[in-house]
């Protein structure tokens, strides 16, 4: 085996020059940057071309994308079968609704509170079950989302307003601007999506992200090479729920009225489908949200048949492309320092 650097390595190996030299550990993503700029620009001008109806649709797709990204941490990256994500979304939305309508705390201040409440609930609920095998965990999370829904309907502690829910939630306000029109929500929600993608992409290529990938692939091997599997699974669960809680807060602010009907098992299923269709990457999670929450809007004229087609499409999709539409690209690391040379024990000794 030779240690001679490959030609491309020699070419690039001039040390301490070029912008990437400052962070060699990061993923090389030259090709991605123009695409990201183009997408951002498109997202920014898109509402100008949309009528009010479609703007509203895009707002709900954006909320769906936030949720899908949050579930992607749990299901897509760590491979934990969570089919009760709506429960965490619900906690965030209800915490926001209750605190806002009772104590008039501004909605945006409640974002971290909603996230924390939801994350905490997720940690408490997941702690005893996190070690369970995939499908067992799935069915338990289904149980959790049903219990939460029933609790909401039963008006626990007289706080949740029973089946009617809570109304009169205030609109959010940023720098004195009251967000009330769909177009304003569009920028708020999609801004949040952009921020989420940026943060989660960073996370993905860090030690934490790698640990989650290892756990997804083989948790025994992950534990065996020094990864605290239970801790990282909980971490993924907590983070995903935290984000879902914040999305719930935005949802409550957008709708101004929430009820248990928005947080059912089927909402969890749709999110699960979005993430799986996406394939595990950030882009996939957003695409999944488009397919699951946007596509049915296009087929609204076929109202009742569209879910039928959706079911068929899910099956067909899994048969044709089980890994999902956009599975995560392999992480690349800058290893140009190798040009300095190394030595293999098997050759030398």
């Amino acid at each position, binding site marked *: 085996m030779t240690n001679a650097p490959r030609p491309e390595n020699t070419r690039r190996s001039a040390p301490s020059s070029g912008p990437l030299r400052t962070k060699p550990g990061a993923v090389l993503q030259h090709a991605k940057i123009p695409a990201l700029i183009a997408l951002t620009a498109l997202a920014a001008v898109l509402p100008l071309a949309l009528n009010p109806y479609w703007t509203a649709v895009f707002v709900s797709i954006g909320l769906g994308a936030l949720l899908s990204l949050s579930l992607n941490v749990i299901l897509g990256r760590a491979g934990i079968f969570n089919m009760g994500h709506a429960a965490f979304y619900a906690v965030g939305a209800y915490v926001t609704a209750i605190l806002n309508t009772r104590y008039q705390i501004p909605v945006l201040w409640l974002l971290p509170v909603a996230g924390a409440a939801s994350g905490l609930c997720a940690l408490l609920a997941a702690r005893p079950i996190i070690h369970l095998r995939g*499908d067992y965990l799935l069915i338990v999370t289904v149980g959790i989302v049903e219990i939460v829904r029933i609790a909401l309907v039963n008006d626990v502690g007289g706080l949740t307003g029973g089946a009617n829910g809570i109304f009169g939630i205030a609109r959010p306000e940023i720098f004195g601007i009251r967000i009330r029109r769909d177009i304003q929500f569009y920028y708020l929600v999609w801004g949040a999506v952009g921020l989420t993608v940026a943060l989660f992409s960073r996370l993905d290529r860090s030690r934490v992200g790698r640990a989650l990938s290892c756990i997804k692939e083989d948790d025994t091997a992950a534990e065996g090479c020094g990864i605290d599997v239970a801790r990282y699974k909980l971490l993924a669960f907590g983070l995903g729920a935290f984000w879902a809680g914040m999305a719930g807060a935005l949802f409550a602010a957008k709708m101004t009225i929430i009820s248990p009907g928005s947080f059912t098992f089927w909402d969890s299923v749709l999110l699960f489908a979005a993430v799986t269709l996406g394939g595990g990457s950030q882009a996939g999670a957003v695409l999944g949200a488009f397919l699951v929450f946007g596509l049915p809007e296009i087929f609204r004229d076929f109202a009742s048949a569209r879910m039928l087609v959706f079911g068929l499409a899910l099956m067909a999709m*899994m048969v044709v492309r089980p890994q999902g539409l956009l599975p995560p690209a392999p992480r690349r690391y800058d290893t140009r320092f190798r040009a300095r040379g190394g030595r293999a024990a098997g050759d030398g000794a």
Partner: protein
Amino acid sequence: MDQLFQQLVNGLAVGGIYALVALGYTMVYGVLKLINFAHGDLFTIGAYLGLTLFVAMGSAGTLPGFAAVLPVAVMVMGLTALLGGVLERVAYRPLRKAGRLSAVVSALGASIFFQNAVMLVWGANYEVYPEVMRPSAVIFLFDTGVPLIRLLIIGVSLLLMLTLYGFIHHTRTGTAVRAAAIDQGAAALMGINVNRIITLVFLIGAGLGGAAGIMVGMSYGQIDFSMGFSYGLKAFTAAVLGGIGNIPGAMLGGMLLGLIETLGSAYLTIAWKDAISFLVLILILIIRPTGILGERTAEKL
């Protein structure tokens, strides 16, 4: 005391239904390690087909007599079994090698498809089983009035379960099913046609689910297109409770869950009725994840 006895009978009747549906989950899980999410919807289809076929058997606007229930049930079981077989072929077989997640999603897709198909064919409103199919006779047992239909359901579900148990444990094919559940590869090496066994398991499970669907219609009168979800989840809970993959476990789990739920909602709280079974499920999985009759196996490294 009277009330308790009545509740016990009610619990066993609903438990028998759960058990029949649970058998479908547990057999499929045993062989494929897959939660067949669409199973609950096959049960719904069974309930609707039962109603439609029964009405169709009458002539010129009149309903047939109660005796027609038997042939209808047989036909329904055959049709749902067939549907179960087709489902396996179309939605699961191509995914056999492709990881669990994709099979789960495909199962969800199938469930959504079936549920909406039922809604399109039979409508979104609930349907009512005619009185003829629901004998209102009351039998006195230990001085307590018990609806005949409940006893009938307990009897029929027990009969079906015992037949299945006999088949699985005392026939060559049944042994092959058990072998395939333990180790598909080894079973194939022993000359067992595993594909045939898997098809068979889907046929039997779906058939029993279809029968359970009719029982729900006959017992409660009302059926609707989304009922497969809650019955399905509870039946799955029952299967886990008894030890998933374990056939007697599904029967035991179904009966137990029926009793727990009925007694719980009679004596504790009706509002939380549907939450009871999920709490049971979560507790079982925390305390004894292998279920009551399941065996603990050491993981091979």
